[in-house]
């Protein structure tokens, strides 16, 4: 069972990383215009940065 001491924090860390990544994308305005982002990929030379 000693492996738990290593595995439990490791899996929690992975989960936390995903949570942090989601929080970052939320703060970076990546969900403000889902339709526009889907359209922008079709346009050459489009400005694909998230809006400020």
């Amino acid at each position, binding site marked *: *069972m000693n492996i*738990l001491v290593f595995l*439990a924090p490791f*899996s*929690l860390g992975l*989960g*936390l990383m*995903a*949570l942090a990544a*989601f*929080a970052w994308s*939320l703060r970076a305005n990546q969900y*403000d*215009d*889902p*339709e*526009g982002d*889907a*359209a*922008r990929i*079709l*346009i050459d*030379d*489009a*400005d694909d940065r998230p*809006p400020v």
Partner: protein
Amino acid sequence: MAVTYPEAGADLSAFVRRDGGAARLDLLVPGARCAGCLAKIELELAAEPSVEAARLNLTTRKLSVTFRTGKAEPARIIGRLNALGYAATPFDPAKAAAERDREGRRLILALAVAGFGAMNTMMFSVPLWAGLFGQELGPASRTLMMWLSGAVALPCALFAGMPFFQSAWRSLRAGRANMDVPISVGVLLTLGVSLQETLLHGRDAYFDAAVSLLFLLLVGRWLDHRLRLRAQGAAADLLALQSAPGVRLDAAGHPVSVPVADLRAGDLVLVRPGERVPIDARVEDGASELDASLLTGETMPQPVRPGLHVRGGALNLSGTLTLRALASAEDSALAGLARLVDAGAQSRSRYVRLADKAAALYVPIVHTLAAATFLGACAFGLGAREAIIRAVAVLIITCPCALGLAVPAVQITASARLFRKGVLVKSGAALERLAEVRHVVFDKTGVLTEGRPVLLDADSPVLAPAAQLARASHHPLAQALARAAGEGPIARSAQEVSGQGLTGLVDGRPARLGRAGFVGTDIDVPSSESELWFAFDGEQPSRLRFSDRLRPDAAATVAALKARAISIEILSGDAEAPVADVARMLGITRWRAGVTPEAKAEAMKGLAGFGVKTLMVGDGLNDTAALAHAHCAMAPGAALDAAQSAADLVFSAEGLQAVVEAYDIARSARTLALENFGFSALYNLVAAPAAMLGLINPFVAALAMSGSSLAVTLNALRTGAKR
């Protein structure tokens, strides 16, 4: 209805906002729908020398244009967009509340944290559950698992529960108890007892239940928020849409563009053809015709000349007018209507929603049950520790999470279904109110009828030559004539005589189109239709009659509503004859003509006073007060902004049938919500006694809770699946 700018040269600098050195223009572009639109608009505008950057949000259809320092040409930008085929309206983002949805972000972050917490607490709870079924788990590993699940669950639950704790605290301070009070009490007690059990190496810890409860509740909360946000967004967008600026003449007689709110009594105001009269005023100079159909419901344009009074909001049709303002913008008739609308909206906000009614019934029962369990267990000599565990088990198992999901899940699927049919629902409460409606009041112009004149004499021999003149004019009758004739040449050297008609060369011969007197006849046949006369100079004039046509599905809609045992009435501001015609054609016996906006609102209040739940369907400014006072209100998408913002539901202009569809869906949503409540009650009836008897362990609690939420959500999805 988007404000259009007939002359691209109009001064729009009042709409450019400056923060720091950068000048910004925000526009609503309702026509932008696809990747092609996005590329066309952004690339085209970026090529403008004065533009620093242009960014279109395809979800909200808002375009933000930043100008290079020192250069701002708003009129050129709008002209550019018009040339590309898109109508654009300036708006003030400060007034658009939904610009950055802070509350939504907090909810979704809380939802993410609760999701993380629920899954990772579960990772440590599953071994503990296995222990309940006799699987071996040493006491040391057991304690480790309990501590680990507590370490994950406690911070997550405290963070994710914040929206509930804050709302519960606010409501308690106001001396009331809303649904969030039992939720907060339940979650905090569960966490506290689980922590105590962990410290004392006890049997059960409900950490996972507390976090997954929050997760499920947050899903319901977020669905409700999205529905409300879309509604508020639509309403705020309407407020933020700025009407075209007024043009004030300064002391030297030069036109200066100013925001309408800055106009004062005594100012000289210039109104060009195609613009709306910004303010109540008296005509100083010029002659024209005003279209007041959105103000009063009258279909016939009214001629005006110097000395006459005009009301703010009327559309100037043919000639340039110089007006003397009689009141400032906030004292105008328009602002008076806006105040009536506010009063109506307040009376409507007192409506108690279905879920709150259920909560008022549910909260005292559950808390009494939990208290009774605690006292009962003590009385049977089980000890305070066991007693409190059982009381908490009752709170967890009867958690209102199915109740919290029951209504939002139904309403979001119902409004999504209506959205696909072209009906925008502004709030969940609107659906609940629509389902209760027993009486429908229709406005005539623009609701039962198409709201624009149609040529009756479509086979007239003078149609083609008359249309050549008509194409040169913006007058509604002339445009109806041009529409009836289709594409064709425009008369040469056409000239519009304000309030009278047009002259020009048709196939080289001088001709006239306009009022009877202008064309040269004194035959004056009184009729309910509007008319134009056309003649080549020196020849006998011919008459062209116009009438407002019924919407094609008006009769079917009225019949369908009658089949649902709903009574129908027409309240119109138009003259008696056309209203009587429409009522006769549709077989409606209750109708009133020539009703003022105030009288319409009074009629609504009167109906409400008798306890009649009324649906008002209207599109004009004269309907807004009545819309706001009705139990529920609908407006067509072509309606004036103010009418759309006063209405609960907005349907796209295609057909009136949307009223019946919306009613049916609202009824079925109500039935499903009540079914969900019934299911929750049944579930609690079984689960609560089991919890009181101590038959519930953490594993059963987790199963029962997610099971009931899942059942309620699946039932809600049936709204979307039908047909």
